[in-house]
């Protein structure tokens, strides 16, 4: 069981900044995120795109913002459970919560801060009636362990970087790789596109474009997929695995069943005070919350995180006195023993 002071659901900009603000109050944080890396949308959707409304940054790339937030909070040694989705929450008799992920990892904390953005990123599934019957029986939406595909026949569908990159990677491992895309053009790094071209010419990747998967067949597991090329009769391609890589889309997911008040696909909070939800001890900050006048901006998430931490302090340290301190005056005392502080003014006589 992982224990912490504030359990943060979501490792996007708001969640990461919460670590810093909590750290100033000597509160520990642990973050859970469904994605395998920190940064949320900023790193998953648009790491190379600029943001222009972060105060004091006339322009910053979303990926760089993530790195700077990690750098800013690192002395408070946050813990991370990445690549796992927060699934259930159970209130304990002592008022604390136990949050369990889809992989069974348990986390216990007196305060839970949901900074889940638009929700957890889930793979987009092709619209094939029986696809769910074959999930984990030959249909996988994500490649976790490439060795799993050794000497197997693999069909990959998609036209972006992940479809290209995995086709390249698996061409050395699988017995055959077929790449199917609706168009002749792919959207990916030039290197990857050229590499696929080369492997196609060498006969190591079987490329079928412009085409779509129109059916999956098999008895208990995938045996073949039906591929329809534009204007042609469908053909059957024998395969052990069908891997559709059509990107990820965010879904509020299991959080929607935690008994929280939901409005407009977001969690209602008390914005007059501390961004607490209808369940005391559970807060919602950043894009995941809603209140009158809400704006889904990173800078608003930072503000909400800061106020939330002050309120969380009172839950964790009931009745204990505290006043806001300025970092310029008080410095920053890391949990790792480091200390940042403003240089002292020199006091020296001028003769």
């Amino acid at each position, binding site marked *: 069981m992982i224990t912490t002071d504030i359990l943060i659901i979501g490792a996007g900009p708001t969640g990461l900044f919460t670590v810093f603000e909590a750290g100033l109050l000597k509160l520990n944080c642990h973050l859970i995120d469904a994605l395998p890396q920190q940064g949320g*949308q900023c790193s998953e*959707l*648009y790491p190379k*795109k600029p943001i222009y409304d972060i105060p004091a940054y006339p322009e910053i790339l979303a990926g760089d913002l993530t790195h700077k937030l990690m750098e800013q909070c690192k002395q408070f040694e946050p813990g991370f459970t990445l690549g796992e989705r927060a699934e259930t929450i159970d209130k304990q008799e002592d008022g604390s919560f136990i949050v369990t992920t889809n992989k069974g990892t348990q986390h216990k904390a007196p305060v839970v801060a949901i900074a889940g953005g*638009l929700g957890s990123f889930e793979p*987009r599934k*092709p*619209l094939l009636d029986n696809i769910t019957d074959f999930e984990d029986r030959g249909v996988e939406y994500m490649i976790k362990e490439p060795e799993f595909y050794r000497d197997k026949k693999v069909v990959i569908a*998609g*036209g*972006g970087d992940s479809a290209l990159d995995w086709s390249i990677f698996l061409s050395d491992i699988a017995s055959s790789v077929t790449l199917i*895309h*609706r*168009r002749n*053009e792919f*959207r990916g790094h030039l290197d990857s596109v050229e590499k696929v071209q080369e492997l196609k010419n060498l006969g190591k990747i079987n490329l079928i474009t412009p085409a779509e998967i129109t059916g999956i067949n098999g008895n208990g597991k995938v045996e073949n997929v039906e591929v329809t090329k534009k204007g042609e009769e469908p053909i059957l391609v024998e395969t052990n695995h069908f891997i559709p890589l*059509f*990107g990820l*889309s*965010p879904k*509020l997911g299991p959080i929607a069943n935690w008994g929280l008040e939901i409005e*407009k*696909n*977001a969690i209602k909070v008390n914005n007059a005070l501390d961004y607490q939800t209808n369940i005391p001890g559970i807060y919602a900050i950043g894009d995941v919350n*809603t209140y009158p006048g809400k704006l889904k901006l990173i800078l608003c998430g930072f503000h909400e995180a800061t106020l939330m931490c002050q309120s969380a302090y009172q839950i964790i340290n009931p009745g204990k006195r505290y006043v806001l301190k300025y970092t310029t005056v008080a410095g920053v005392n890391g949990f790792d023993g480091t200390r940042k502080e403003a240089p002292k003014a020199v006091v020296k006589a001028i003769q």
Partner: protein
Amino acid sequence: MEQDINITIIDREGVKHQIEAPTDMAMNLMEIVRSYELAPEGTIGICGGMAMCASCQCYVLSDTELPEMQDDEEAMLSEAFDVKENSRLGCQIQMTPEMEGLEVELAPES
């Protein structure tokens, strides 16, 4: 207002809305839909308008002349679901006075 144009949007429940869309606020069709709350928040414009999610896909029903599709819109639509010949991404259609009379239908949520 003189900069406003009249357009028709059929929402995902099939309800037809005749609305006035400003053309002087650099708004795109996805943002117009959100400003009138014709689709629930969180189901449209998820990526914020970067042609990266297709949640604002719509079918163009009128023969209004629209800006030509750019590479990123075309690439996104080639990976999206429920795509038809007349599919466009609302976020890539900036409102201009020439679009008076535009009629679109929102594609299903996916």
